[in-house]
């Protein structure tokens, strides 16, 4: 696992971070946070995911990779409660998670970003990030209408949390800009901010670097690593950029045609013959 995190993008910071990295290694990765057991997902006759099992440990960065149509996004949708698996079980902190609506899953502490940005275009950046806090706000209708007592205190307390996230992701300058006016790369960052504002125990990132140029990818990689380091957030991500995945993640699941063909550290996965076949093709 050592050396799997040499990010060539941010040299100066990287060496400093890597020194602490080795020391913290034993502590950083905790027990299993979420376990997926024999998950199968069918849409009518189409089997999108077939009998996949893997786990996500607390504090790690777990990647799911695979060619187009391998079932990666479906997998993420199962974890976030958008799809209910046809067979198999999800265990969250050791307990079987019953079928849930997505909003209930969000309240368990699972936050996510989307492949095609799903921000609330009519709202400002600040309001968008504030929506990430709404599972933490409990004030009733009357208190909110009067802007009094609990409602006002909550607004202020949560604004402080949100401002920390805004600082962290360096989007202070666009705080009050409507999201619709922002360029693509910044939108992706705002979406990450919204997910982070929820202080999730599991953060799902669906192609966080899709459609970005090299510089934006480097920024995003740095943010993902920093989030993991500073807040100890468990991250499960889907990404197509192999270099990024191999550098960022602690463990990788490889999927192809809805099956799991590899699972392990980036080095192990890189040497796995099935994975090489899936990505490079097989001579017939």
């Amino acid at each position, binding site marked *: 696992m050592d050396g799997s995190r040499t990010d060539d993008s941010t040299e100066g910071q990287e060496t400093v971070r890597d020194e602490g990295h080795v020391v913290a290694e034993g502590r950083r990765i905790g027990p299993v946070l979420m376990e997926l057991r024999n998950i199968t997902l069918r849409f009518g006759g189409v089997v999108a995911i077939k009998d996949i099992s893997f786990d996500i440990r607390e504090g790690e960065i777990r990647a799911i990779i695979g060619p187009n149509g391998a079932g990666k996004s479906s997998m993420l949708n199962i974890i976030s409660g958008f799809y209910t698996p046809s067979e198999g079980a999800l265990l969250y902190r050791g307990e079987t998670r019953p079928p849930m609506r997505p909003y209930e*899953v969000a309240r368990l502490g699972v936050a996510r970003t989307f492949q095609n940005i799903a921000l609330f275009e009519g709202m400002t950046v600040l309001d968008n990030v504030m929506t990430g806090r709404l599972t933490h706000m409990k004030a009733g209708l009357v208190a909110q209408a009067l802007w009094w007592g609990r409602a006002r205190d909550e607004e202020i307390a949560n604004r402080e949390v949100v401002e920390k996230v805004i600082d962290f992701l360096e989007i202070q300058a666009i705080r009050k800009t409507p999201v619709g006016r922002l360029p693509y790369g910044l939108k992706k960052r705002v979406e990450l901010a919204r997910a982070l504002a929820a202080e999730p125990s599991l953060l799902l990132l669906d192609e966080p670097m899709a459609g970005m140029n090299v510089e934006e990818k480097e920024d995003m990689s740095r943010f993902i690593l920093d989030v993991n380091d500073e807040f100890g957030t468990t991250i499960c991500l889907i990404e197509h950029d192999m270099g990024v995945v191999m550098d960022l993640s602690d463990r990788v699941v490889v999927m192809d045609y809805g099956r799991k063909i590899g699972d392990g550290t980036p080095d192990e996965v890189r040497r796995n013959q099935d994975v090489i076949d899936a990505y490079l093709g097989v001579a017939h």
Partner: protein
Amino acid sequence: MLYRTAGQFKTSYKADMALFPVRQDAVLLAVILALVWGVFPLLASEFAFQTLLIPILIYALAALGLNILTGYAGQLSLGTGAFMGVGAYACYKMVTLFPWMNPVVAILLSGLFSAGVGVMFGIPSLRIKGFYLAIATLAAQFFLVWLFEKWGWLYNDNASGAIQVPNLDMFGIYVAGPQASSLVQYYVVLAVVTLMTLLCINLTRGNLGRTWKATRDMDIAAELIGINLLRSKLMAFAVSSYVVGVAGALFVFMWRGAAEPNLFDIPLSFRVLFIAIIGGLGSILGNYLGAILIVGLPVVLNTLPQALGLPISSATVEHLNVMIVGALIVFFLIIEPHGLARLWALIREKLIIWPFPH
């Protein structure tokens, strides 16, 4: 220059989240409040009260209610007129069943009935969206107006089938009915509308407002960040119908004095919808601007030829009026499709940096 915000620093989040963080906005609002609370009532004639001030406020309140549902929560509704009717009939039943009841309390309570009815008709909104939901609310419109007509208990089995507002007094002063003075009614309406507006501003800028806007902008993402969509939508239906119901009670008790079931038919719904659209969906200010345009403009155009001494027959004035108002609506929608409130927002943005280009 007048609107320069430079130099107004916020040192706490509380200050930044104040109702009017920009000082000029607060000053402007204070001037408007002074006008509507102090100056207008002193200067206004009976005619101005009855054709301009009172109806503009009531229509603005109804549009505000609709705006919460359509503009903030994104649920299109064509049943506003009927929900106003529920408020009006509920208020009528309350003051006739319990004559000792304070009329203003009755008006505020009548909103609860329309909120309940609104929630009932809002249940389909989880499954149907957009135009299809509009059709579902249209069903509410037809059903409720039919009910107002057929259910004699609602209008105390009057021979006319209409509801007639009795004389109602509050602390010895008549506030509704034939003996109430316009000035008193104006102040009652203004007080209720001011209160409702303040509450709605707070709701829309707080957590519930963000929940609604998230539901409107992208419902799938909203659900995945922890919003219970059904709850969010029903809450919007409830709050919206409450405000609309109160507006309906004011409409009959403080302005019309009597109402037949067909008063609450589709034309009323459309009128309120037009006010909300032209004023600007998803804004509070827009409802007032829209109401001034839709309610106030025809009155001004009607009286203008007479005031100027032009020899035009009243029938011609009526026709011209319809044409001019229609053309103006189209004109405003072309120059700013997002409504008058957006127009003001753009002007304000320009004023903040004026005289510099950017």
